[in-house]
C-alpha cells in the first residue's frame, strides 16, 4: 500500500522535476485524447507547442500575450501569499485601460512626450483606485473581497461599455462602440520589429524582479508572507492586517491596471467594448502554477500564453474545435497542480496496519 508522507523539507529536485512529470502525464493523456479523436497526436503536439513559436512573429505574440498574464499574475500572487483573495484582477485591468485610454483621448492628436508616461501612470492609478474599493470595504466594513472584487468586474465592464457607446465614442465612427484611435504619441513603441510586442513585457519582467526582491528581501514582504502563513503569529508580532490588505490590493490594482493600459496603448490602440479575453481570471491560474513565486509566475504566464496560441494553431491546422483547447488546458493544469504534490510529499510503501486511533496523530495543515 502506498501512502503519502510529508517531507522534512520541500524537495528542491522535485520542484524542478514536477513540471516535467506533469508534462509526461500530459503527453500520455494528449496522445490518447487525439488518437480517440482520430487526429495525429504528433502533429497536434507540434501545433500546440512548437508551431506558435516557430517564427519571430510567433515569439512576439507569445510575449505580447504573456504581458498582461504576467502583470496580473504577479500582483495576484503577492496578494494570495498574504491571504487576500482578489479574484477581480479583470476589473482592475479594465479600469486601468479606461483611465489610461481616457488620458490618451484627452491628449488627442497632441504629440506631447508626456502623453504616454501619463497614460501609463493613469492606468496604474485607475487599477489601484478600483482595487481600493474592496480594500476599503474589507478594512472598514469587513466586507469579503472575493465578492466585491468579482462584482466590480461586471461593473467595470459596464462602465467601459457605457463610455464607448456614449461620451467617448468616436465621432467619426458611425456610432459604433469604439473610441478614436490613439495617436503615435499615445502608443507604446514596438520592442522587436516585425512583431507586436511592446515595452510592456520589459516592464512586466522588471516588475517580476522587483517583486522577487520585495518578497525575499524586504521586511514588508516578510510581514505579508507571515500574515498569509500564520495570521495569528502575524497579529502577535503586531503586523497590521489592514496594512497588508491595503498593500496587497494596491499592488495588484497597480499591476493589473498597467496590464490594461498596455493593451489599449499597445496592440489595440483605442478603447473598445472588450479589452481583455479574461486575462484577469487566467492570471489566477498563472499565479498558482507559478507557486506564487515571482519567477515561477513568469514561467506560468509563458506557458498559459503558449496554450492559447497553441489552441488557435490546432484549430487552424487540424480543424480541432475550440472546445478541445479548454479541455486540454484544464487537463494540463490538473497535472501541473497535482505534480506539485511531490515537492512537499513523497510516496512511501507501507504495510497495511490497523490505525491506532488512540495514539495522537501527527497533523499538518498547509496554506497551499
Amino acid at each position: 500500500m502506498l501512502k503519502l508522507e510529508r517531507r522534512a523539507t520541500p524537495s528542491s529536485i522535485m520542484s524542478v522535476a514536477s513540471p516535467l512529470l506533469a508534462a509526461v502525464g500530459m503527453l500520455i493523456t494528449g496522445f490518447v485524447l487525439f488518437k480517440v479523436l482520430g487526429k495525429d497526436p504528433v502533429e497536434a503536439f507540434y501545433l500546440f507547442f512548437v508551431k506558435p513559436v516557430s517564427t519571430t512573429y510567433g515569439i512576439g505574440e507569445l510575449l505580447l500575450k504573456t504581458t498582461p498574464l504576467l502583470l496580473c499574475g504577479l500582483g495576484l500572487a503577492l496578494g494570495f501569499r498574504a491571504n487576500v483573495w482578489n479574484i477581480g484582477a479583470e476589473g482592475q485591468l479594465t479600469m486601468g485601460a479606461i483611465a489610461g485610454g481616457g488620458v490618451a483621448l484627452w491628449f488627442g492628436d497632441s504629440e506631447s512626450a508626456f502623453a504616454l508616461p501619463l497614460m501609463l501612470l493613469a492606468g496604474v492609478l485607475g487599477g489601484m483606485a478600483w482595487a481600493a474599493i474592496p480594500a476599503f470595504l474589507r478594512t472598514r466594513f469587513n466586507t469579503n473581497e472575493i465578492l466585491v472584487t468579482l462584482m466590480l468586474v461586471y461593473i467595470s465592464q459596464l462602465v467601459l461599455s457605457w463610455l464607448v457607446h456614449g461620451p467617448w465614442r468616436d465621432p467619426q465612427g458611425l456610432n459604433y462602440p469604439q473610441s478614436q484611435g490613439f495617436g503615435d504619441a499615445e502608443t507604446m513603441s514596438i520592442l522587436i520589429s516585425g512583431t507586436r510586442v511592446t515595452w510592456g513585457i520589459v516592464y512586466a519582467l522588471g516588475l517580476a524582479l522587483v517583486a522577487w526582491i520585495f518578497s525575499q528581501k524586504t521586511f514588508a514582504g516578510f510581514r505579508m508572507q507571515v500574515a498569509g502563513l500564520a495570521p495569528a503569529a502575524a497579529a502577535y508580532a503586531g503586523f497590521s492586517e489592514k496594512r497588508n490588505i491595503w498593500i496587497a490590493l494596491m499592488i495588484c490594482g497597480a499591476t493589473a491596471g498597467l496590464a490594461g493600459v498596455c493593451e489599449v496603448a499597445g496592440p489595440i490602440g483605442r478603447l473598445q467594448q472588450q479589452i481583455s479575453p479574461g486575462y484577469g481570471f487566467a492570471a489566477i491560474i498563472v499565479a498558482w502554477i507559478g507557486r506564487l513565486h515571482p519567477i515561477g509566475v513568469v514561467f506560468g504566464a509563458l506557458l498559459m500564453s503558449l496554450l492559447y496560441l497553441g489552441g488557435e494553431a490546432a484549430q487552424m491546422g487540424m480543424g480541432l474545435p475550440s472546445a478541445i483547447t479548454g479541455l486540454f488546458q484544464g487537463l494540463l493544469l490538473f497535472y501541473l497542480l497535482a505534480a506539485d504534490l511531490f515537492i512537499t510529499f513523497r510516496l512511501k510503501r507501507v504495510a497495511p496496519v490497523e490505525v491506532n486511533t488512540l495514539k495522537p496523530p501527527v497533523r499538518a495543515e498547509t496554506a497551499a
Partner: protein
Amino acid sequence: MNPIVPMIASTVVAATPLIYAALGETVVERSGVLNLGIEGMMLIGAVTGFATTYATGSAALGFLAAACAAVALSLLFGFLTLNLQTNQVATGLALTLFGIGLSAFVGYNYAGLPVNRLTPITIPGLTAIPVVGDLLFHYDIMVYLSIALFVGVQWFLTKSRTGLTLRAIGESPSVAHSIGKSVLKTRYLAVMFGGAMAGIAGAYLSLVQTPMWVEGMSAGKGWIALALVVFGTWKPTRIVVGAYLFGGVTQFQLFAQGFGLPIPTEFLSMLPYAATIIVLVIICRDPKTILLNQPASLGRSFHSAA
C-alpha cells in the same frame, strides 16, 4: 394585466438555479473546501441533463443524470484537492476551464435541438386562486424542491450531528481529526453534494429556464452563485434571500427600462452587482459577522499523517 405577479414569477425562475448552486457550495465551503469550479460543473450538468431528457423524454432522469455527471467532475476536484492536496482556488478554476471545454465538446450535436419544458405543476384548488395561485402555486416542481433543499440544508447545518461535524471540520480539521472524525470522508461527501447541486442548477437552465443546449449557456451564473455564498455569510437563509434579491433587482432594472427611464442602460445593468455589494456592506458593518461565519480553514489543504 397586473404586471407585478408575472414579474415575481419570472424572478423566482431566475433565482432557482442560483439557489441550488449556492446552497450546494455552502455545504462545501462549510467543510472548509473552496470549489471555484461551479460554472464548469453547471455546464456539464446542463448538457448532460439536456442530452438525457432529449433521449429519454424524462426530465426526472435528466436532473438525475445531470447531478451524477457533475458529481463525477466534483470527484475529480476532490481527488486533486483532498488526496493530492492541490491548491483549491487553482484547481477550481481549472475545473471551470475543463468543464466549459468538455461540455462544449460533448454537446456539439445537441445544439439547436428542442426538448419539452418541465411544466409547472397545478395543485387542485390552490392554483386556481386568483393572484395567490399564480404567485405561489404555479411553478415547476424544482422550485418547490429548492425550498425543500433550503430547509434541509438549514436543518443539516444547524441541527444534525453530521452537520455539526462538518462545520467542526471546516473550522479546524486538525481538531476534528484528533477526536476521530474523518476529515477526508466528510469533505469528499460535501464536495460531491456541491457537485450534485451545481449539476441540478445547470440542468434547471437547460430544462426549465431556457430549455435548450448552447455552449456556455450558464453565462456566468456559477460565479454569481459563488458570490451569493459569501453574500449570505455562509448562512442558508441569507443565501436564499440573496438569490431572490439578485434575480429581483435584475428583473426590476429590465422593468424600469420598459417604462423608458432616461438612465443609460449600462447603469441599470450594474444594479444587481452594485446592490449585492451594498447589501453585503450593510450586513457586515459589524466587524465580527464575517469572522464568525467564515469557515476558518476555508481553502486550506489538510493532510493527516496517520
